[in-house]
């Protein structure tokens, strides 16, 4: 049985349409107009135990809203979801003890308490035994290198340090499902790498099911074999990450290095779209079906030193998918 089952989930907000300017504000007092925003629109997917799935989409796509419904914070407008056999928005304690949500942009620890006290409160709320707490705390603070910061007030920690403690707090009770909403947002490169490595290792060791939202491709590429792409509230792709490129991009890139004086731009016309060109190196964008033919032409017609065939960068593909344009 799948750990997470989402069926035709939708969240529709009714928001006030405000007219600009002072006149608009005054009119709004007497005659309010509303519009409907479909934050999540008919999304369905299932996730098996132990999977680490990326939930990818631009800002406002509906990723966080979906996570909030799966964590029981929001009620859906239409549709159903089952996580660990529970309906999340019923907020049963048995469910809440088995999952955790970490939001990169929101602080869930108590701002005015030292980190250790905040973690201890979490321990008691979830009913973690003293031995288990000590074991998990020692292990996590060692791994994330924050042991020396336990006595510092949460509000005095840096963003990266706070994020590490947020992760520790969420894992004290060893949840079976971990929902991560942009956990590396705002962090420096080193902190991002540390967090990613920690998450990957944790998933591998404990088989915790992890659903991670991000708009950083580095997070998705480093952590997720499977990705669900969402845009304007709708699911537009669900499958292996490398299959995103195959499905949404009809081209490949051929980068070729020339010997003996190089090649003029005009000589390459008609072989494909020239993305870059210098006398000794060119990058051509070629339709998949033509890759073999163009490669052979290059090798036969010119003095080639090196030739590489690569996929179009996934960032470019995803960017075009988000913009709603077909990449090729």
């Amino acid at each position, binding site marked *: 049985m799948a750990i997470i089952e989402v069926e035709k989930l939708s969240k529709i907000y009714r928001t006030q349409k405000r007219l600009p300017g002072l006149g608009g504000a005054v009119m709004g007092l007497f005659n309010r107009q509303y519009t409907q925003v479909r934050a999540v629109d008919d999304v369905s997917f299932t996730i098996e135990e132990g999977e680490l799935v990326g939930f990818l989409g631009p800002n406002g796509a509906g990723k966080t809203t979906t996570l909030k419904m799966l964590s029981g914070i929001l009620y859906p407008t239409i549709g159903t979801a089952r996580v660990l056999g529970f309906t999340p928005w019923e907020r049963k304690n048995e469910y809440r003890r088995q999952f955790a949500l970490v*939001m990169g942009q929101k602080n869930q620890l108590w701002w005015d308490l030292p980190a250790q006290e905040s973690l201890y409160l979490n321990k008691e709320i979830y009913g973690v035994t003293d031995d288990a707490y000590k074991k998990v705390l020692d292990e996590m603070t060692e791994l994330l290198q924050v042991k020396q910061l336990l006595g510092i007030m949460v509000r005095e920690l840096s963003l990266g340090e706070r994020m590490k403690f947020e992760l520790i707090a969420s894992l004290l009770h060893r949840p079976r499902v971990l929902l991560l909403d942009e956990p590396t947002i705002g962090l420096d490169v080193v902190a991002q790498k540390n967090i990613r490595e920690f998450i990957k290792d944790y998933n591998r060791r404990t088989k915790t099911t992890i659903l991670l939202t991000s708009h950083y491709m580095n997070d998705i590429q480093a952590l997720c074999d499977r990705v669900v792409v969402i845009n304007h509230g709708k699911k537009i792709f669900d499958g292996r990450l490398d299959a995103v490129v195959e499905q949404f991009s009809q081209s490949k890139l051929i980068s070729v290095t020339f010997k003996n004086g190089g090649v003029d731009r005009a000589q390459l016309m008609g072989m494909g779209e020239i993305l870059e060109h210098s006398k000794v190196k060119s990058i051509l964008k070629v339709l998949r079906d033509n890759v073999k033919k163009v490669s052979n032409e290059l090798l036969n017609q010119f003095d080639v030193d090196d030739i590489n065939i690569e996929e179009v960068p996934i960032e470019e593909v995803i960017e075009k998918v988000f913009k709603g344009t077909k990449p090729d």
Partner: protein
Amino acid sequence: MINSENSPTVIIPRAPFHKYWVILSTRTQEDMVYRANYVFGAVFRFLPLVTTIFLWYAVYQARKAGGASPSIQGMSYEDMVAYYAFMYIARGFSSVPGTMGDISKDIKDGLLNRYLIKPIDYFGYQTMYRLAHKLVFWYVALFTFPPIFYLLRHYFSHIPTVWEWAAFVVSLFIAFSIGMFFCFMIGTLAFWFLEISTFLFVVMMIEFFMSGHLIPLNLLPRVLQPVLQFSPFGYEGYWPCVILMGKVPQDHLFQVLGIGFLWIGIFYVITQVMWKMGLKRYSAVGG
């Protein structure tokens, strides 16, 4: 339950209410750090009492000079001073400053999320949080209130009976409960009205007046008294004071306290309904 080293497991808490004790304990310890704040508050909050004593002295002297009765609605000048002094005790239980604002802020800013995803009751958390403030307040007040009350000892003419002491203690529990529930009710209005700061101010002023803090409720027009005295706000100040002053006949004590518990029940139901309806509207803003 024993946790396997590498596999996630479900943990059943040993004592479901133990976490609330820890919240109370943690918050109390943290508030103890702000001792100076509580000392200043406990001492200087009596300054208005000085003004009140002088004001009612002037009122009663004017009545005496005019040949009027030395008591107003059964309250002598000494009773009046005793009333306002006891009001500090009553309001020390019923007043939970910041609660309405914090609850509405949690809702407005999406900070409620952290409580919704954990196996904890939000109202239970807020109650323990405020109780922690109260514990520290009264710990400090143990040093500051006795000297003040010793100075005012000549105004306390009535020696409460055992029943009156017991009823007074129960009335303080009712005062705290009604204070908390009322704050919770008003705070949860933020589910429907995102900006309620002005409304909060108006509500607090009304509560201040109707609790009898400004003026004893039995001094107000007779036609209003049943409404005001038996409104829930009367239990936040007026009733604890008059019980300790011996102004409530013993055979009426149970009735008075019974109505107080009834209000707790009514507020509990209203709070539950508002909370459930409000959560359905909650949009958890903020990304």
